[in-house]
């Protein structure tokens, strides 16, 4: 492990020669060993202590400790500081050590993975960490890529290779990488062993999508691009094997370069606490100065004369110097206003809250068996203050699963579920799914609920048959048949996969394809269609078509596409059918389904020939080839006959609309940032109820230039202004914006708006001069959707809101493309249980369902915030009450830094007597039951507004503390000054006074915590009563004869407890003090409850009087939405695959065939295989296509 980290000068370029370790070693490139751990056994103690003492608080306490070791200053025993300090350091060290241990373990696990390395012409198993730059390694299917590789060759034709980059960028669809032609022929080991090309390329960097380099081989230069690279973290898919040359290893890989050290996140309470602690230090110094001046004056006036009885220390020569010393002494005494236990307790409470999150059964996903996990324990209370949520779409809001849900065939709609009586059944009470057992090739996972569709297929309805035939023919899906009848579809978009799978289950099984044919099992019979053309999809056309010739020789064009596009291109004879289908489409769209319209057209031979010729011409054209092709396509896709429509459900994660509605009610603004297309994003926006038709307007910003974007934003703002002006707000709109008045004139707009902005517009909107305009517009909207955004833009948007809004932001996502945003936001949430875990690793919290967010925020976050605030208030209160007594006593003891209490009491007060009750409150307190915080989302608002703990609240606590300390000192003083004990002896001795004040202090703060605790569990009872009991037990023990006998000088208070606490006067004093300290608090709370109740009080009250209000059930039923029909052709589709199919480049060879052909030379075996495949496919009785049982 030690060889992992070596500092090297920055590289200017990288040179790596294949199979030449000696040569590569000259450059001392990083090995493939990675190290994320911080310590080893030897360095742990010094490094960890060094780090810990970088914390201001720890250094402060160390400083205090040193002060206490100076005898002239020491006013408290050293153990009052060292015990807590050592405790804190130990706890932190143990935590750091365990963290680092797990990092070591994960490093080891990764470093020891096996990979096959070509060494001396032989493939050898090597550990990942022993892989060097310049090695050639062999990867097999489904293996992780070990380092950044240059792809040399693969099992696939043309050196193609498929990878999944989910770990890197979060995109789940497969990507193609291709070796450069010269190396793609290096298929076997002997050739590879002789390969001695040298790569010269850019130095290591973190750009995932860029690579530039040159391969020098056999005196030729070959340019290299990202298209030739396999990056560490990718997974090889659908590729038997491939060989790669290691270019970057270990820490130099793009993956590692991207995983920068996570910034340490602090909560706003943390920052506030630090400010307050600084203020308290200031306050402490002031107190010290006052008392020091007092001491100087006293020593000058009184002390000099009192020297008969108490001469000055030898070192002290003047009253001034004595005052100086007493300043430090008082700093030591009064330091308990910021006790070190504050920091420990805060950590303990947060840890407790984190465990509650981990333990929460209601955040456990049964399906994925994943519990929620609080990965950082320092941010919990910030969860109660979130104002902005930035959410990813795919995988977060949606499951990225497309389901064939409904269809309309020739004017009849299928897919609605009817119960026995013929009523439309609600979702959730589904009857048995349709039985597809007649079809041995059916996909078991496909579920459909309407049996009538299958009946229609079985009775041979020609329209239905044609419908499914279209679905089985018109697509770019690739099939793979590992075993007979076990079909796997590799769809480029999940929508298309869903459609082809649907056709498959209804008896139209797409079996295989070659560049020129498609074989479909139609109701058991294999039929091979001749594939004449694929009119591929693109963003403008929003449709795709295939032209096929069926075995009878008839040519037909099948087309599927977006309704808006396709409906104009239908034959006029279909008008009536069109109307019915439109109704169905509206209905589907209203349910949030993605719709496609299907149509066909018969072509006669001559027309096709002539058209094909024109198409050929167009495709050969040098200039504007795209446009020409488009117009040729458009020509043939006309006068089509309508077949019907499909409706695909982009499955939302469970409970997403409800969660979003609830969070919106809690005044949390939700922005969706997605890499997806605008249509998809808007569609999802509607289906998860972020966008509704009730909204006044949805602004869509798609401008390509700065001016356009600015104009669009301006228009949006004007519209919002106009409507609010008409409502009567009557403020004037100002064109000029300045950052100072960003407190937004727009905040008060009437009506609900939404903003949809495109990636390229966003790039302009995020520029320095427009970001404010953008932010202001966006913040005035109820919902914001940013589509087509890059990972970096996601982070920029979050950063923008963070910068100007001073609001707590939360980012939630599932993929590696969300990592930047997760790291940027105050709180990052990762969706776990997915394939990629990059997001989870970067996140602060993880769980597997978006819907858990409501519980995390509204229940856990709210409680955490509440508890933390109550805890802090109480903590400052109790320490001020405790410490300030010394200040008052100073005026009576000649400012000599004499403490009021016994030093053991000072040591134990914070760590024993008062720690557990407040911890119990901080961990367990609840103001309202969890159901209520879901029912009344407004209960979340105090956190957003920072109401429960801010500077004002802090001053109130301090004031209360000081008030208590005044009474705590002066009431016993008043009583003791004159009184005597009931046996006539002196009452006002120092020790009795100390015990009386200490006892009343413990009782008062215990009563106070009792009042602050809103939720008395058995644990609270135990801790509060226990603390009191422990106080008295320790008091009597410390004052016992036994201890005194052993250490007479240490335990001076012998006999004090029983003598003092036997006095009725003492108890009367304690009772009086308690009453006077507590009653005003009770009165204050009562009056606030009556005069200014907040919502949680009200909720509690309603609870109490049991007037069970009906929960404000938000209507969550799927309400049909009409009007805005959104059709989308296979939304996540990319163009270009049609071409790939037609060229045959990506044709997979079945593994069976592969084995018998590997020995042949590459150029010929591909051809022959292709021939063989098409031969067998075109003959229905071919060996691979046995007739299916009906």
């Amino acid at each position: 492990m030690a060889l992992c980290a070596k500092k090297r000068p920055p590289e200017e370029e990288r040179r790596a020669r294949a199979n030449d370790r000696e040569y590569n070693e000259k450059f001392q490139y990083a090995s493939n060993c990675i190290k994320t751990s911080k310590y080893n056994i030897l360095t742990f103690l010094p490094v960890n202590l060094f780090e810990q003492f970088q914390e201001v608080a720890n250094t402060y306490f160390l400083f205090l400790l040193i002060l206490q070791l100076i005898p002239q200053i020491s006013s408290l025993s050293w153990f009052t500081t060292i015990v807590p300090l050592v405790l804190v350091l130990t706890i932190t060290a143990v935590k750091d050590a365990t963290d680092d241990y797990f990092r070591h373990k994960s490093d080891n696990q990764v470093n020891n993975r096996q990979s096959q390395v070509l060494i001396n012409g032989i493939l050898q198993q090597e550990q990942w960490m022993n892989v060097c730059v310049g090695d050639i390694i062999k990867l097999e299917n489904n293996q992780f890529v070990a380092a950044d590789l240059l792809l040399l060759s693969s099992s696939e034709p043309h050196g193609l290779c498929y990878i999944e980059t989910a770990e890197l960028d979060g995109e789940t669809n497969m990507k193609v990488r291709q070796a450069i032609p010269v190396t793609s022929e290096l298929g076997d080991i002997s050739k590879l062993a002789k390969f001695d090309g040298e790569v010269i390329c850019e130095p290591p960097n973190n750009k995932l999508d860029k690579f530039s380099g040159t391969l020098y081989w056999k005196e030729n230069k070959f340019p290299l691009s990202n298209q030739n690279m396999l990056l560490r973290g990718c997974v090889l898919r659908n590729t038997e094997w491939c060989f790669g040359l290691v270019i970057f290893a270990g820490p130099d890989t793009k993956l590692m370069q991207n995983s920068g050290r996570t910034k340490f996140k602090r909560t706003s309470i943390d920052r506030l606490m630090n400010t307050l602690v600084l203020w308290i230090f200031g306050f402490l110094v002031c107190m010290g100065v006052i008392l020091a001046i007092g001491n100087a004056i006293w020593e000058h006036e009184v002390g000099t004369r009192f020297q008969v009885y108490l001469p000055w220390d030898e070192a002290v020569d003047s009253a001034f110097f004595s005052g100086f010393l007493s300043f430090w002494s008082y700093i030591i005494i009064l330091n308990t206003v910021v006790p070190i236990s504050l920091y420990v307790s805060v950590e303990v409470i947060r840890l407790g809250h984190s465990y509650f999150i981990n333990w929460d059964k209601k955040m456990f996903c049964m399906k994925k068996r994943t519990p929620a996990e609080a990965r950082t324990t320092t941010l919990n209370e910030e969860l109660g203050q979130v104002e902005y949520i930035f959410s990813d779409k795919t995988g977060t809001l949606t499951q990225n699963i497309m389901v064939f849900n409904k269809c309309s065939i020739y004017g009849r709609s299928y897919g609605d579920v009817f119960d026995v009586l013929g009523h439309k059944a609600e979702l959730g009470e589904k009857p048995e799914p349709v039985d597809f057992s007649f079809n041995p090739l059916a996909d078991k996972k496909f579920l459909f609920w309407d049996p009538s569709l299958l009946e229609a297929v079985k009775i041979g309805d020609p329209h239905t048959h044609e419908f499914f035939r279209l679905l089985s023919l018109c697509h770019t899906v690739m099939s793979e048949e590992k075993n007979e009848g076990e079909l796997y579809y590799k769809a480029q978009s999940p929508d298309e996969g869903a459609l082809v799978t649907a056709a498959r289950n209804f008896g139209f099984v797409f079996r295989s394809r070659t560049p020129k044919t498609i074989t479909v099992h139609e109701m058991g019979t294999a039929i091979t269609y001749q594939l004449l053309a694929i009119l591929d999809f693109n963003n403008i056309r929003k449709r795709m078509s295939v032209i096929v010739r069926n075995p009878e020789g008839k040519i037909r064009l099948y087309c599927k596409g977006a309704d808006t596009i396709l409906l104009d291109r239908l034959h006029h004879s279909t008008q009536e059918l069109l109307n019915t289908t439109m109704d169905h489409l509206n209905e589907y769209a209203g349910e949030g389904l993605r719709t496609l319209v299907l149509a066909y057209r018969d072509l006669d031979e001559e027309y096709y020939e002539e058209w094909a010729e024109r198409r050929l011409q167009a495709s050969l054209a040098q200039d504007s080839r795209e446009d020409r092709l488009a117009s040729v396509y458009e020509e043939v896709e006309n006068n089509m006959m309508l077949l019907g429509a499909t409706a695909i459900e982009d499955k939302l994660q469970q409970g997403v609309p409800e969660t979003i509605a609830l969070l919106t009610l809690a005044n949390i603004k939700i922005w969706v940032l997605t890499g997806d297309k605008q249509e998809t994003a808007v569609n999802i926006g509607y289906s998860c109820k972020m966008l509704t038709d009730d909204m006044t307007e949805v602004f869509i910003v798609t401008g390509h230039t700065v001016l356009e974007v600015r104009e669009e934003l301006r228009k949006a703002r004007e519209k919002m202004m106009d409507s609010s002006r008409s409502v009567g707000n009557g403020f004037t709109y100002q064109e000029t914006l300045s950052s100072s008045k960003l407190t937004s004139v727009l905040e008060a707009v009437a009506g609900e708006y939404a903003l949809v902005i495109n990636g390229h517009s966003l790039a302009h909107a995020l520029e320095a001069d427009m970001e404010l305009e953008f932010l202001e517009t966006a913040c005035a909207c109820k919902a914001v959707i940013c589509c087509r955004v890059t990972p970096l833009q996601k982070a920029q948007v979050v950063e923008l809101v963070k910068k100007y809004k001073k609001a707590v932001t939360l980012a939630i996502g599932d993929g590696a493309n969300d990592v930047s945003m997760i790291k940027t936001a105050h709180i990052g949430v990762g969706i776990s249980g997915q394939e990629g875990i990059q997001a989870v690793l970067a996140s602060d919290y993880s769980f597997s369902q978006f819907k858990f967010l409501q519980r995390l925020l509204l229940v856990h976050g709210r409680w955490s915030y509440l508890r933390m605030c109550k805890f802090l208030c109480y903590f400052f209160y109790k320490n001020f009450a405790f410490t300030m007594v010394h200040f008052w006593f100073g005026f009576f003891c000649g400012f000599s830094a004499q403490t009021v209490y016994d030093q053991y009491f000072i040591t134990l007060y914070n760590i024993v007597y008062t720690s557990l009750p407040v911890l119990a409150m901080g961990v367990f307190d609840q103001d309202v039951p969890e159901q209520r915080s879901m029912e009344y989302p407004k209960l979340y608002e105090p956190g957003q507004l920072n109401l429960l703990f801010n500077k004002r609240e802090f001053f109130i606590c301090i004031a209360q503390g000081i008030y208590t300390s005044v009474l705590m000192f002066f009431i016993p003083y008043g009583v003791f000054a004159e009184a005597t004990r009931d046996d006539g002896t002196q009452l006002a001795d120092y020790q009795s006074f100390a015990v009386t004040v200490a006892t009343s202090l413990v009782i008062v703060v215990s009563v106070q915590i009792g009042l602050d605790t809103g939720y008395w569990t058995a644990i609270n009872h135990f801790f509060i009563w226990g603390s009191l009991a422990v106080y008295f037990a320790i008091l009597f023990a410390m004052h016992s004869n036994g201890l005194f006998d052993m250490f007479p000088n240490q335990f001076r208070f012998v006999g004090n407890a029983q003598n003092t606490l036997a006095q009725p006067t003492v108890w009367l004093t304690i009772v009086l003090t308690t009453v006077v300290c507590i009653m005003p608090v009770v009165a204050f709370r009562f009056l606030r409850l009556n005069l200014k109740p907040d919502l949680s009080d009200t909720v509690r009250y309603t609870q109490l009087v049991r007037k069970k209000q009906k929960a404000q059930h938000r209507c969550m039923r799927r309400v049909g939405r009409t009007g805005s029909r959104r059709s989308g052709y296979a939304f996540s589709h990319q163009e270009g695959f049609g071409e790939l199919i037609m060229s045959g480049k990506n044709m997979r060879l079945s593994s069976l065939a592969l084995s018998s052909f590997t020995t042949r030379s590459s150029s010929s075996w591909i051809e022959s295989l292709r021939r063989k495949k098409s031969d067998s496919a075109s003959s229905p009785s071919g060996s691979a296509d046995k007739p299916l049982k009906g």
Partner: protein
Amino acid sequence: MEEMPQHRLSRLPDNSALKQQKLPAHRLHFTTTRVLFVFFTTGIFCLCMGIILMLSARRTQEIEINYTRTCANCAKLRETASNFDKECTCSIPFYLSEKMKGKVYMYYKLHGFHQNLYRYIRSRSNRQLVGKDVKAVENCYPFKTSNNDTPIVPCGAIANSMFNDTIILSYNINSSVQIKVPMLKTGLTWWTDKYIKFQNPSLKNLADEFRGTTKPPNWPNPIYELDKKDPRNNGFLNEDLIVWMRTAAFPTFKKLYGRLNQTHHFIEGLPAGSYSFNITYNFPVTRFQGEKSVVLSTLTWCGGNSLFLGLAYTVTGATALLAAFAMKAIHMMLKNKQMSFFHQ
């Protein structure tokens, strides 16, 4: 890291009340009835307590006579340290118009004497005072040893500054006959002090035990000659010493000097009449601008005469009651508004 073991994606969390935050609990509510009840009860309790305390405090009798300036010549004499061996006595007559019933206690009271200074309080050796090791003087700075390194017994600033006036109370039965009022010098201390905290090395011969030590600089006599009349009241067990060593919390304090021995004329306490204090004036207070007085006092069930506690209770009780009424009024006034609030 890019990969993590998947093994922890298991286990459903326990369904325990603790882990699900569903511990059975009592929720605290500040309901009107409860708060008002508490306020009324407290108010009434405090008021009653206050009245009782004030009444009983008024039953006690106390006489305080400041003799700092009454014995002006002695005070002057004591201002110069070199006159320490010159005896100075003075007599302070006073008239007791009402008899002091029951137990009567005599105190000396010092004004402006700081027994609560940090270095003063620490300047003692409990190990020495408990008789374990008479030469243990470790904490006693600045009075650890004498100039020739002999350990001081009892060491420390506290012991050194011990109050050493002698106060004798005389009763004038008539103008010619004056008898000494019998005072007990026992029972002035806590039991734990006398029997645990302070112990003589052995009871045989104190002077032997303290050989090799020296007396504190301010003391006229060594520790074993503190009470020449009662040999048992010597050494560390001298009650005046024990009383003095229990340092006072505030610069003005009184310490018990003697208890009335209720015999003969004084069975029912001190009868009315004329008395005088005969004081041997040893303790200098004018040097630090302090004062000293002598106090005679009787007690009640709760100790000495202190109006403060009674007054404080009365005021608190009255305030609590007033507050209770005010809150009741506010609550009534707001009731309608509040109801509408809760029914939103």
